[in-house]
């Protein structure tokens, strides 16, 4: 029993992922368990992974950012509007990133400087950003006169491999390295572990909070731009669909780490679980309501299993 617990604690979530893959492979051997489908899945989860890495950073300092969805929508909208206006494409993808860094910095600054709960701060920011989107677009999806080249990032393939999957892998490797092997990552975890100890250890807590929020906003913005590029239009609510599922992915991801802390690889596993479920259940041509029930139940079960292991 004890051994079982230890195994569950260390590998429970990974085992769940493997089991899901096995079940679908048995049920749909010809279509699910194929290289083509896995490439397909990697592309489908790529956007969620990138935005979820942002959520991981903020959660590593024990805060929340509820504005990631609207930040993503805003990123897509600004970028698409610039493209429509004829701005060179490279600038269309760079300027929104700079704007998002500032917005994220403001989030962090309010949280750290005035000790406002991040929950409230970012809830406010989310509403502000929705307002800005409305002001910019009048609420309409931006799609007319977007130059063809704008869709390159979201649709290009290197041989069989979609560029989006490659971008995802680069971000995962980069931020996993940052969180585990750099001074920045170690300090973020220290702040998340115990803010008072971090202060006494000479860590400039407000500065690092700003950075975490800024990076999170940046990753959200990049996600939003990639959505717009993929579908060739910028919907004013495009990012909201990722808001809850990305936090679900981070929570599942926490269970991958022995310390129970948010981590990039865990988040990738979380996104993979959610993405593979959607993919497999659609392949089984399961009605949508059943997909929702099964996905929700699996999120809850994953977390319970890990808690049992920890006890």
């Amino acid at each position, binding site marked *: 029993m004890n051994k079982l617990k230890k195994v569950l604690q260390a590998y429970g979530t990974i085992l769940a992922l493997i089991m899901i893959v096995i079940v679908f492979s048995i049920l749909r051997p010809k279509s699910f368990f194929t290289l083509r489908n896995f490439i397909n899945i990697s592309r*489908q989860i790529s956007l969620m992974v990138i935005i979820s890495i942002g959520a991981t950073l903020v959660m590593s300092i024990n805060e929340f950012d509820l504005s990631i969805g609207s930040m993503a929508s805003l990123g897509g909208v600004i970028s698409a509007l610039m493209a429509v206006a004829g701005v060179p494409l490279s600038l269309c993808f760079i300027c929104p990133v700079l704007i998002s860094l500032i917005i994220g910095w403001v989030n962090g600054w309010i949280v750290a400087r005035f000790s406002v709960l991040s929950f409230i701060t970012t809830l406010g920011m989310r509403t502000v950003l929705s307002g800005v989107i409305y002001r910019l677009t009048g*609420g309409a*999806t931006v799609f007319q006169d977007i130059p063809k080249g704008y869709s390159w990032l979201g649709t290009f393939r290197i041989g069989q491999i979609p560029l989006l999957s490659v971008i995802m892998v680069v971000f995962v490797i980069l931020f996993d390295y940052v969180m585990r092997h750099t001074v920045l990552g170690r300090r973020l975890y220290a702040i998340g572990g115990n803010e008072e100890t971090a202060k006494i250890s000479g860590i400039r807590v407000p500065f690092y909070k700003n950075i975490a929020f800024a990076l999170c906003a940046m990753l959200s913005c990049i996600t939003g731009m990639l959505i717009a590029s993929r*579908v060739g239009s910028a919907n004013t609510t495009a990012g909201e669909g990722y808001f809850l599922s990305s936090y679900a992915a981070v929570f599942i991801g926490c269970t991958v780490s022995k310390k129970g802390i948010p981590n990039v690889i865990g988040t990738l596993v979380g996104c993979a679980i959610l993405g593979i479920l959607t993919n497999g259940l*659609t392949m089984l*041509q399961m009605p*949508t309501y059943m997909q929702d029930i099964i996905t929700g139940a699996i999120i809850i079960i994953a977390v319970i299993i890990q808690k049992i292991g920890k006890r």
Partner: protein
Amino acid sequence: MKKIMIVVLVILMTCLSAQAEMTGKQVALMTPYLGSVTTNQMVEYLKDDLEAKGAVVTVINTNNDFSLLASRIEDVAISGQTDAIVLVSADPSQVANQLQDAFDAGIPVFGCDSGFIEGMAVNATSDNYQMGELIVHYLFDDLMGGKGTVIALTHRPHPGVVKRCIAFDEIIKDYPDIQLITEQHVPAEQPINDAQTIVENLLLANAEEGSITAIWAAWDEPAIGAAQALKEAGRDEVIVTGVDGNQQAVSLVAEDGCLKATVAQNFEGMAAIVVEEMEKLFDGQEIEFGEKYAPATLITLENIEDFLE
């Protein structure tokens, strides 16, 4: 100088009195779906027409949130500042209690592509059921030749879309050789992206060429997503249809890709009906309460020129 001023004033006043029934009227345009292209178009038409007639227009959008829409209707009804409400693309039965407040306050409620419940003045709409019939018959008879398999992409919470779905449900019963593979619900936040993902997965599950004959989308955005997925997967043989006639869809029909047909709703016509009926009402004329339809047309490659902007 004084004389000229008086003349100008008199002219101005005559001008104003000619459309006095609309001047200064406060009209609230309320919708949860301003992000949708078609809803947005309608709101723009309504706003332009009403403002041209001198009305003061407020646009209220609640970002897919019906309970928020309900609260905002209460606000409008209670404040007593508003002379008319126009619900745009919002099912009135979902906010029936709040609309009752407006009815009690004597505020006329119009619908634009919304739905009709007792107490409202007029709902101008396409006959969604008829639009459904139009495209489903065209798909089943002309494009599929009465046989094959079909996937349905739907969103039944929407009052207009659900009628198209009902039309689909009923017509498919008459075609024993057409098989429904699956129906998938497409969320409203990012329908293109989500539909693309859903179709990609279904294509892999039905990987054989010819295993899917057609994809029927209940509105244009999932049709666009489906067409993109098919294009990327190289499954050009699959037929896609949409409904609504939005510009992105029209341009895809013009490209002669997978998206073969859509239905143009006459949004401008709907807006015109609402404005016309509202004007009559403010003028004190009797109007007939209920649904009023603006006729819809099928868009295919043959008549595409008329719809390209």
